């Protein structure tokens, strides 16, 4: 399994053509306390860079983008009642959705973990 990162601060962990998507620890720290998360339902088609989920902090609403194109197989149902899982475990239990990749070639444009962490240091 390999984990990739986007400049929009999403992560995607890939196992064959199956993948899990979430937002990074840096993203959750920038958003602050989350009070609402809306994830896509199974069957939703998402496209790379397109809106896939909504997060709302006390202050404001933000969109979460799909790191790659594909079909959602599962949204994280736990986030409906516990949006703060994204704050406490953004890169674990606070995952957003799972999907089947439409085009594994789209992963080529993403960063690996070391490159992402180094880039975040520059922000």
């Amino acid at each position, binding site marked *: 399994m390999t984990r990739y990162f986007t400049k929009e601060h999403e992560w995607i962990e890939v196992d064959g053509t199956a993948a899990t998507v979430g937002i990074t620890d840096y993203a959750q720290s920038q958003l602050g*306390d989350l009070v609402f998360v*809306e994830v896509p339902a199974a069957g939703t088609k998402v496209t790379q860079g397109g809106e896939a989920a909504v997060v709302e902090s006390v202050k404001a609403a933000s969109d979460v983008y799909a790191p790659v194109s594909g079909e959602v197989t599962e949204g994280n149902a736990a986030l409906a009642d516990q949006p703060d899982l994204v704050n406490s475990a953004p890169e674990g239990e606070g995952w957003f959705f799972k999907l089947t990749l439409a085009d594994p070639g789209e992963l080529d444009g993403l960063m690996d973990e070391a490159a992402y962490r180094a880039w975040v240091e520059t922000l």
Partner: protein
Amino acid sequence: MSDADPVPEIDTLPLDGWHRARGARMVAFAGYHMPIQYDGIIAEHLWTRAHAGLFDVSHMGQLLISGEGADTALEALLPGDLTGLGSGRMRYSLLLNEAGGILDDLMVTRRDDGLYMVVNGATKYDDIGHLREQLPDEVTLNHLDEAALLALQGPEAVQALARIAPDVSALSFMEAGAFDLDGAPAWISRSGYTGEDGFEISIDAGDAERIATLLCDQPEVKPVGLGARDSLRLEAGLPLYGHDLDEETTPIAADLGFALSKRRREEGGFPGAERILAEREAGPILKRVGLLVEGRQPVREGAVVIDQDGSEVGRVTSGGFSPTLERPVAMAYVPLAAAAPGTRIRLNHRAKLFGAQVVPLPFVPTRYHRKGAPK
């Protein structure tokens, strides 16, 4: 990029370095770098409701209006009774335009050296221009821009502040006086904008870091940012200028009729008096109300109140998540017929429909230290 676009200048306030040293995340607000949060908005909000939060509100405008007849002259610009305002007493009031629209909301206090006024940061230069233009020459307006302003808010604010200046516990809500704060001269009022008991403390900018540190050394006190200030005032049902109030809004529509002092209602003589007093009798077209929003998703400023046909009939002016109630709440202007508590309304926010119920404000009961109240 065009050379014609001026780069907006963001100024720093006396406690800028102090906030950064304490881990604040800074944002631009009202032309200043301001702390939006330290530990997190929800934690800071709940701490203030349970203990005491220290807010830096030095961006607000502190004005001193003095000279013969200053109170009478100022009464021509706002609907509050100032000639009847006793020494050390303060009043919430509204600067009004000729149409009765709200130019700003403010606090005004009678001091020995004049009328001390605190106005919003984003509007202070407009207010100063308006006052200079409208007030007669014999009345002097001083902008106290060398002063910092701190707000200490929460049920334990009094015990924390009284440890440093014991006499402050004698103040009741909306009273103020001059105090010595560990050697720093301070003008302290028992007031604030969170719905809690608390104080607002005006000190010289040069004393600000030392006093802020001294206050935060008290076990009851933590620094709190603008984010929690906004969620606290929303729960307390308090309007925020530029959002819930603007020049198109009258005091009656904003449900701020209490700011029209009895003598002023009877005598008139404030800007827009005819319209405002007529609206007070007949009712406004739209009225500011509180909304409990169904579901978990917050509805924000800009959401639209719609009728059964989907037509826009009102708007949400503040909305967010209430940490105390653990649910979304909002303030909105709705048609008078829909303003009674219990009325169910519908909202359209970012192409999504929400149900909501009109409820009385405040959402969370206020706990001001009123005169005559026990303890």
